């Protein structure tokens, strides 16, 4: 996952925490100029703009991101209830909005949906995390330059985890999201496949998938762990 731009700098703590817990990589940006200066080589993955403290600068920031070629998307704007009217006639400046004070779960769900939609665009779909790369178009995984030969279910499980780095998933969630509810095996199946993935990634990379005791599994580092 590439880096998300967050306005303003510094980002409100509650927002920073929510983004971290949901596993996003992000950077706080204070102005349109900074957005250009700090832009990662692959471009911004999207933006989260908090508009409730300094609406004018916030909307200016949105406009600057949207005027670029290509425009930064998806973009979600956080506004207070009193600002709802400000959204009118600014439809081209944002893809979704969320009311402040926001509910972390709501924001997380909205972001996830936005990024999912964004993911269906024509960009080559690569998931990168440390040495691991997944090419979602060709179904190929590799560690460094070494291809990782996986079975279909191992691939699907790794894809799901790598697309949601830093998040802790219970076995039940993994089973329902990766195998589907109709699967009749029980959560032990998840353990069996995690064990296989770790073995295939090799000892030095096996800890990319971490066991979170009595909860489940997490891919990559959790900032609040």
């Amino acid at each position, binding site marked *: 996952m590439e880096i998300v731009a967050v306005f303003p700098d510094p980002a409100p703590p509650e927002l920073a925490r929510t983004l971290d817990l949901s596993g996003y990589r992000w950077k706080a940006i204070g102005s349109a100029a900074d957005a250009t200066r700090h832009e990662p080589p692959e471009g911004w993955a999207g933006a989260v703009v908090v508009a409730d403290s300094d609406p004018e600068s916030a909307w200016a920031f949105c406009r600057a991101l949207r005027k670029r070629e290509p425009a930064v998307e998806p973009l979600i704007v956080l506004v207070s209830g009193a600002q709802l009217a400000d959204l009118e006639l600014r439809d081209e400046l944002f893809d979704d909005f969320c009311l402040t004070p926001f509910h972390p779960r709501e924001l997380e769900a909205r972001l996830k949906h936005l990024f999912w939609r964004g993911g269906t665009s024509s960009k080559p779909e690569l998931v990168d995390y440390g040495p691991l790369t997944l090419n979602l178009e060709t*179904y*190929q995984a590799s560690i460094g330059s070494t291809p990782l*030969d996986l079975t*279909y279910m191992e691939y699907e499980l790794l894809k799901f985890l790598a697309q949601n780095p830093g998040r802790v998933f219970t076995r039940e969630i993994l089973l329902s999201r990766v195998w589907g509810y109709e699967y009749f*095996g029980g959560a032990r199946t998840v353990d*069996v496949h995690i064990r296989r993935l770790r073995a*295939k990634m090799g000892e030095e990379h096996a800890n990319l998938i971490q066991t979170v005791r009595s909860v489940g599994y997490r891919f990559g580092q959790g900032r609040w762990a």
Partner: protein
Amino acid sequence: MPVNEQQRNYVVRTVEERGVRLVRLWFTDVLGVLKSFAISPAELENALEDGMTFDGSSIDGFSRVQESDVLAVPDATTFEVIPWGDGKAAEARVFCDIHNLDGTPFDGDPRQVLRRNLHAARQHGFDFYIAPDIEFFYVAPPEKGQAPKLLDEAGFFDLTTNDVSSNLRKQTLRTLEAMSIPVEYAFHEDAPSQHEIDLRHTDALTMADSVMTFRLIVKEIAAAQGVHATFMPKPLEGVQGSGMHLHLSLFRGDENAFYDPDDAYNLSTVAKQFIAGLLRHAAEITAVTNQTVNSYKRLVPGFEAPVHVSWARNNRSGLIRVPIPKRGNPLATRIEYRSPDAACNPYLAFSVILAAGLRGIEQGYELPPEADSNLFELSDVQLAKLSIEQLPQSLSDALRVMEQSELVADALGDRLFEWFLRNKRREWREYKTHVSAFELDRYLRAL
């Protein structure tokens, strides 16, 4: 996209991306021999969609009876790139289910037989999990009529550093893991040149596939070093044979159906009935779990192989052992069935074991008392008093009991039941007419 189509896409794209030149379609004959035919990537999509037609006569063992065409339909979930061989012209394998040309499951296919038995367990809400401990010997490439030549003289757990066999074992483990077969332990066994590799549990179908792959990998890795790996149950007189102890459990969703915290043994009623079923039908299923003439030379007193039909918590002379799980872990509660050897057909062996256990559950069999003394030290009279019977003493005995077994006929299906008996009776007839070195040494001069 429907799941099946996604799986097929995954296979097709992987073959393209990884430059796979040959896809091997794997299936298993009645005797548990891995069969394979290769197709080119160009034919792959068609094969995944409609299956490949082939002559069914290769599936019924050495007494050819089947002569009509059948379909091999790849099970895309088992597709893997083969990690040994030529890196530039990669090969892949996929296990197949065999179907009749009209698309119905072919009842002569061991994998379909296991599927059917697992389905029956599912009707009761059970998933069948298995973890095998597989033993084998490394020997010099065999010559006809010669006794096996061993690679080392080490004993149990000996560190045989830098020797050929420990290198082989290391390489084997790496290859197993690369083929999605996780290993729990690997060590040097009791007998010289004997090794054991314990696999981590999986569902029974995956495990049967894994055992087939395991045997091939162990042999391939050894052959590349000029060594022969053998799963022959008793290759050497006077030392332990090679078994395949099976750790068995039934799960209901995420619950271990064998576990009961309130029982003195932590065994549920389901577990006790399952054990009772296995004990009562043990003699009937032995021809399948121990299918060679040589298997019965392992099942003798004094070599840690079971002889008596009994169970206990920690008695390695019995047929069924109930290991005490680490830290009382409910998920690890299981039973260990100790008679099978790795020369069996895993699909059929798992099928009849499951059928025997399920019969115990369905009919509510009573578990006989635990036999915790060393049974090898008891006299026949004492054993009779405990009503402890012996396993069949020879392939011929085992076949005779199996023939009468309605349970085994149901579990295997009529066609496979008949093929199996036909193959094995023929094997016994050939053995019976053989005049052995034992006889010549003992009688030629003396009589």
